[in-house]
């Protein structure tokens, strides 16, 4: 029968039986060959997160800045689209007069 829970459990068990050893091997490989190179990035992030301001004001300032930037860019986009629309209208009017 389709959608049986036992069947799903069986498939899940099979999948995990093959996947877990593979995941372990992959993690060991990462631990030996990749993770040692990440320590510098981690140190940098550690310093950065320690030096970030504790009060809310700078974060709110960045938030306001992003909102203002977004509105400005959106306004510019709107103007550009209006210009395009006008150009299209002019071209269609010209074509209409020629026809």
């Amino acid at each position, binding site marked *: 029968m389709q959608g049986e829970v036992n069947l799903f459990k069986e498939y899940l068990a099979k999948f995990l039986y093959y996947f877990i050893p593979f995941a372990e091997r992959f993690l060991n490989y990462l631990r030996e060959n990749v*993770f040692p190179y990440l320590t510098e990035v981690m140190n940098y*992030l550690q310093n950065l997160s320690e030096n970030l301001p504790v009060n809310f004001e700078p*974060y709110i300032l*960045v*938030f306001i800045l992003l*909102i203002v930037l977004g509105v400005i860019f*959106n*306004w510019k986009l709107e103007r550009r689209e209006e210009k395009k629309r006008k150009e299209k209208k002019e071209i269609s009017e010209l074509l209409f007069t020629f026809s």
Partner: protein
Amino acid sequence: MTDKKLLRKGIFTVISSLFFYVALPYIIYTKYLVQFPQLALESYINWIMRMGVIMAGIQFFKSVSSEKSTRHALGDLLLSIVYLIFFFKLFTLKVTVDVAENIMVSISMEGFIYIYLLAALIGIFANVIKVFEVWTIARRSKSF
């Protein structure tokens, strides 16, 4: 999609992100988690709220620009960087629990850091490539 629609979408996104990142953690903390002072979760909640404000701003910046634009890709990149800092701090914070007198349990998620760091760095790299890709496509279409 016209730009007013985009602006409306952005306002909706900023309100929802402020609710989920700032208001909801604050409500949960003040209503429920304050009752367990031994958990000392204040630093976690403050951190989530602080970064949540920036994340909401970036979400707005991203969603007011049209899809497949450089600004949208740039917003994705900024978001992935902020997510990295946010989760890094969350994983490095230690929660200490006073179980009983002279018994203290410290909980940390430092085991996740390296694997998350790897995934986040790959994601940031992918986003940088995406920004360049979108930028070159936009430049080419302008020259046509």
